[in-house]
């Protein structure tokens, strides 16, 4: 990660909902072609921050640049170069996956072959299925497919693995890594620290609307150990999830 080029830069971002200060002066940069994690408890301001960068929400103050474009003045240009997966978003009712992808192709004004998009997330067999008929993991994969339609420079994923079984989660990690390896920057929020540790190149911890730490997972862990921290229980060479995967296999369950 030498020669780090910032593709998103957030400076002194503030968002107030009336009296409630959701975001209180956030500043950070996301580098090109990395997986950047926003971590923190519920209500810390992660989703609000994401939605401001995605141009879905107005900020109270501060500056946000996406690929050099200002969210205040170039919202439409930004929308054309980003892919957005929302937490718990649904899709147009009564349409199958191919038809939904056709719709999004129209909304982004791009020409794509729906089956190729489905192949990217391994959902070819579900082409004629409705979104609501999919399993949790398939829904998330489909959502990711819709974010890739416009060949975006940056993809935003808001808690993509929440509620998934271990196999589906690991499969999604592979998919997200693949997207990054293809040259796309990924910004992700999650509650799972093992996920952030495995997946993210850098993470920022958000607490009560402020960033309280920002670094590579490795460095953050080293810093903690250097401060004298010790785990109460001795760490074994494997954990219970390793047992689960070892017993039930890595393959898909849906």
């Amino acid at each position, binding site marked *: 990660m030498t020669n780090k080029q910032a593709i998103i830069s957030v400076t002194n971002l503030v968002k107030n909902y009336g009296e409630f200060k959701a975001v209180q002066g956030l500043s950070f940069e996301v580098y090109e072609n990395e997986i950047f994690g926003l971590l923190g408890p519920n209500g810390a301001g992660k989703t609000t921050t994401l939605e401001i960068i*995605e*141009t*879905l929400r107005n900020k109270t103050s501060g500056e946000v640049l996406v690929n050099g474009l200002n969210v205040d003045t170039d919202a*439409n*240009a930004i*929308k*054309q*170069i*980003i892919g*957005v997966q*929302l937490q*718990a*978003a*649904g*899709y*147009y*009712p*009564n*349409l199958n996956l191919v*038809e*939904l992808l*056709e*719709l*999004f*192709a*129209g*909304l*982004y*004004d791009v020409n794509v072959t729906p089956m190729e998009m489905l192949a990217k997330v391994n959902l070819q067999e579900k082409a004629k299925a409705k979104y609501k008929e999919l399993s949790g993991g398939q829904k998330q994969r489909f959502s990711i497919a*819709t974010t890739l339609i*416009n060949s975006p420079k940056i993809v935003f994923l808001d808690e993509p693995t929440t509620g998934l079984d271990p196999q589906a989660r690991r499969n999604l990690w592979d998919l997200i890594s693949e997207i990054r390896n293809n040259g796309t920057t990924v910004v992700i929020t999650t509650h799972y620290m093992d996920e952030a540790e495995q997946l993210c190149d850098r993470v920022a911890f958000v607490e009560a609307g402020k960033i309280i730490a920002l670094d590579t997972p490795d460095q953050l862990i080293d810093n903690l150990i250097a401060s004298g921290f010790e785990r109460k229980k001795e760490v074994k060479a494997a954990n219970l999830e390793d047992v689960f995967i070892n017993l039930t296999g890595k393959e898909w369950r849906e």
Partner: protein
Amino acid sequence: MSKHYNHTKATLSLAKASFRSITRSPSAVIFTLAFPLIFIIVFGFIGGGGMKIDVAIAPGSDLQNPVIAALEKTGVIRLTKNDTKENIEKNLEKGAYDAVISVEKNTAGLPAYFTNVKYTSASLTNGNVLKSVLNDLAHQLNTVNQKPTVTEIRATTITGRLHRTIDFILPGQLGFSLLSTGVFGTAFIFFALRQNLVIKRFFATPVRRSSIVLGEAIARIGFALLGALFIIVIGHFAFNFTLINGVVTVINMLVLATIGVIVFMGFGFVVSGLAKSESTIPPISNIITLPQFLLSGTFFSINAFPAWLQPISRALPLTYLNDAMRKVAFEGANLWDVKQQILIMLLWGIGVYAVAVKTFKWE
């Protein structure tokens, strides 16, 4: 990314998606097509043959005689031959039979037959019609081969345009179909899109808000017009619905349908904004649609309503759509002839959309 973003393509993609979705939504198909068609079929068959008088032939009556033969030829009287005495009495009391008739051969000479009729107070009007049919018939049978001594009545009837029940019912059902599609369909879809964050996801694409509304409107109007065309065609070919100027009349009706559905969609936008949950949509929509269903001359002419009710009827937009549709279809009026009705609908449209702009919620 230097390519210019195409808003028309986005709008049409939305229209296509919405149209597909509507055709697969059971409630849209039921309200727009099935519901009106059922009413049209029911009324089409009821109203088909005009007046019928039910007459039972008493058991033991002579059947091979000129009286029965002449009655059968009138086309107004439906004779039932094999009913039991008990059953006949029961149905007479209820008015299910308008009369019972019995013909006896006179063995003593002339007249050749006695015709005994028993009417019922349960069906006096039909009884009176039968009475005059019988008198007329008796006179004709008795005066065969006799020259009239005082006068011979020479009556002719000019052939006017036959106003069938279908001519009244079909425009009313069409209007109601447009009202349902406009109000329920629009309210449900925009509520669902908002609730499930579908619109929010759309906002993450470069699409304009106006494209979302326009795309939805194109699909809904398109579906409503196809439904209207379907109803008109079935009505015309299966039930002789009058289309006085043929295709021109159909086109005029479709123009009226478009105006109607646009106005009614405004109500749908208002409902989608007011509804707090999915289950509050039907009651709020019904508050808008049911009074119009009952009071706007869908089934009965509003002239049949009590005087105090008529001003309410005359305030409702569906009244004017129905009125204009009937004038165009049956009287052959053109759109300029029904400008007053169109103007009132447009005034409703302006009012409703003014409210919709205030109440509609995107998120």
